[in-house]
């Protein structure tokens, strides 16, 4: 059997699955986004051209929700990256730290929990009447137990804090993996050459570690952009619309209002933004390589 044919045969099952479960639904979604289609009322699907898209452009609330989502992504990924990098570096540097393995294992626990379960737990933990956190905050700081999820000002940071708690371990893991990719010989050479800590980081560690680390950041960015279950369980987008991220808006359009056409258009818009963000990351990451190539 010729080699190319054999290769295609080997990857054919994966391609078929990818086509059925990814490509076809995506094409279907693209198609639906051009239709006026509501499940519970109105006529059968009618071709509406770009109407769903123009409606989205003119929706003054949508841009606020996109802005809130971007802020959430920026803060969540930013804080998680800084904390993850610092803690990951500490774990990498102190390999003989007593209990290191156990600590690393425990740190990964939040990441493997279902977000909806985490959201429900934290809703109880935050409860101003029965929750552990407000109880100790009130006792230690001698204040009234704070109502974290019932306050227009505190709900967003309270949800953000849970996301950081949950996903910082992922960045720790990526940092440890990234730093593990730095050749030992180079690190030893750097030590022999008496490079400063900054120089060592800039010229030895970063070039080797950046790809894995940035991959972690890209994955987290895409994931944070899609945050749904955590917020849905904790606040349902409230109080008011203070935690109404764009994923909750898509869910609301599709499964609450049953406005399938509009929800499809919004999903594509969000997909476009997420892909753009990932592309920007990758471009920045590869900028040096591209420049050298020129």
């Amino acid at each position: 059997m010729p080699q190319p044919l054999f290769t295609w045969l080997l990857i054919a099952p994966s391609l078929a699955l990818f086509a059925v479960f990814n490509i076809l639904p995506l094409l279907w979604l693209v198609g639906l986004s051009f239709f006026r289609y509501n499940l519970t009322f109105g006529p059968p699907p009618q071709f509406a051209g770009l109407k769903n898209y123009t409606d989205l452009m003119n929706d003054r609330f949508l841009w606020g929700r996109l802005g809130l989502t971007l802020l959430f992504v920026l803060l969540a990924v930013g804080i998680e990256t800084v904390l993850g990098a610092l803690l990951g570096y500490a774990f990498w540097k102190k390999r003989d730290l007593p209990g290191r393995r156990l600590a690393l294992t425990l740190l990964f626990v939040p990441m493997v929990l279902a977000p909806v379960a985490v959201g429900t737990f934290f809703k109880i933990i935050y409860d101003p009447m029965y929750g552990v956190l407000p109880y100790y905050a009130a006792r230690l700081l001698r204040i009234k137990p704070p109502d974290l999820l019932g306050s227009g000002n505190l709900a967003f940071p309270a949800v953000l804090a849970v996301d950081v708690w949950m996903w910082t371990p992922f960045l720790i893991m990526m940092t440890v993996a990234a730093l593990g990719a730095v050749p030992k010989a180079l690190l030893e050479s750097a030590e022999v050459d008496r490079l400063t800590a900054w120089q060592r980081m800039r010229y030895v560690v970063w070039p080797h570690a950046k790809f894995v680390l940035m991959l972690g950041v890209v994955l987290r960015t895409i994931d944070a952009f899609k945050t749904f279950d955590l917020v849905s369980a904790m606040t349902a987008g409230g109080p008011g619309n203070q935690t109404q991220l764009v994923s909750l808006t898509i869910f609301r359009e599709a499964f609450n209002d049953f406005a399938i056409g509009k929800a499809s258009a919004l999903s594509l818009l969000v997909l476009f933004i997420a892909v753009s963000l990932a592309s920007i990351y990758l471009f920045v990451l590869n900028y040096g390589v591209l420049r050298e190539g020129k």
Partner: protein
Amino acid sequence: MRRPTTALNRTAFVVLASLAALGTLYLGARRAFAQNNAQPVTLTILGISGWTPSELAGKMAPEFQDYAKQTGGLSVRIKFEGAPFSALEQKAATSLAAHSKEYDIIISDSQWLGALSTPGWIVKLNDIIQREPLLKRAEGSFNTITRWAYQTYPYGSDNLWGLPQEGDVLALYVRNDLARDAKNQAAFKDKYGWKLPTSFEEWEQVTWPKFEQIMGFFNRPDQGLYGFAGEYSKTYDFISDHVMSMMWMWGGEIWDSNAHQVYGILNSPQNNAALEYYIALLKYQPPGANTFDINGVIQSLTQGKAFSGLTWAAVGPAILTPEMKDKIIVVPPPGRIVNGKMVRIYCVGGQPWVVNKFIDRQHMRAALEFLKWWYLPETQMRFARLGGNPVAQYVLDRPGFEQIQPWYREYRYMLVTERARDFWHNPTYASLLEVQQEAWTAYATGVVNSAKVANDYAACGQQKILYDAGFARQAPPSSCEEVRLR
């Protein structure tokens, strides 16, 4: 000479063969029919998980199975599937939209009748009710609010899409042990000059201003006790049911159901005052009450944190625990004096049964048998004894009915047209609700500081939804462009 004999033989052969074939067909059909009857039909009910009246349908199923076998020779097996309130519509609608036969009967919320009937997903029941004497008898016994709320779309019309599974009303749960306490009685009388109510009849006279005095009297945060617990959560319709009740009592309306006009009606000065009043009651409630759902009220009462709580009669079993059942009484929620007359109007709860239009004849037959069984007086009485809320008047009027459950007197008192009201029943129900929940929880949690802004936001949003969907003739005014929640 032999030909005629052969011909005769041939004719006889054809006749005999035809008879044999018909006989075989007949026997085969009989056997198949007998098998069909013997094969159990699985009747799948989609209901609300964690909601006693809904789950009782599943628990009582074995009784129906016996009934079906005895009366119609039907072998039926019941399968109950549940989803929480907030996810039930998604589960039902997505399944019905695919013309699925997954669920034969669905316990829907009353406001969904429009959304489920408009696309033709559920069976219109008018003819069936007329045809079936048991259903006709039950139908004839429902009072007006029961009929409007659980059966009709458009609301109040003659188009019947559902049959009531359970009735429900808002009820005030009160810590009567504290109210009866001699010290409390004396101190209250000293302070306010009137007797602290301790009986159903006395609570019947309580108005909101009077109730505020009671809430204030029992609001003792230093002792871990608060005067009241209400629903304020953004989830599903929790804050809406309470706020709309206040609006109706304050003389407002939530829309004009004929013109589908919301703007100028929902954001009226009376409604702004009603919303302001209900949110101001938070000062008598436990910390975190501004996001309380049904569970928040239940927990406040069962854990002794609140003197009183306003929630559904259907959650009576959860509140009246063995520890609490002698301490709490269930009474009508406060009213309001309008033109010298006590006015008491609250949201009706409860859910109807609806039948999937896409199921086959066998399942349809089983579903109808189930509904007929449901309205038998003995089934309704059994439902009542287990803690459900029956609606057939021939059961509600039975002597001793009010003594079956501690909340039945209040339930029966409130489930009348002048005291209970339902809302919308429009296909855009979920969208109308969402914008309203958003607006009112924003006000309850301090995201906006004005009831007027919250009501303007809800009215503008709802007017746009109804206009875009083609129900309303008027678009929201241009001033709506400026209305924001923050």
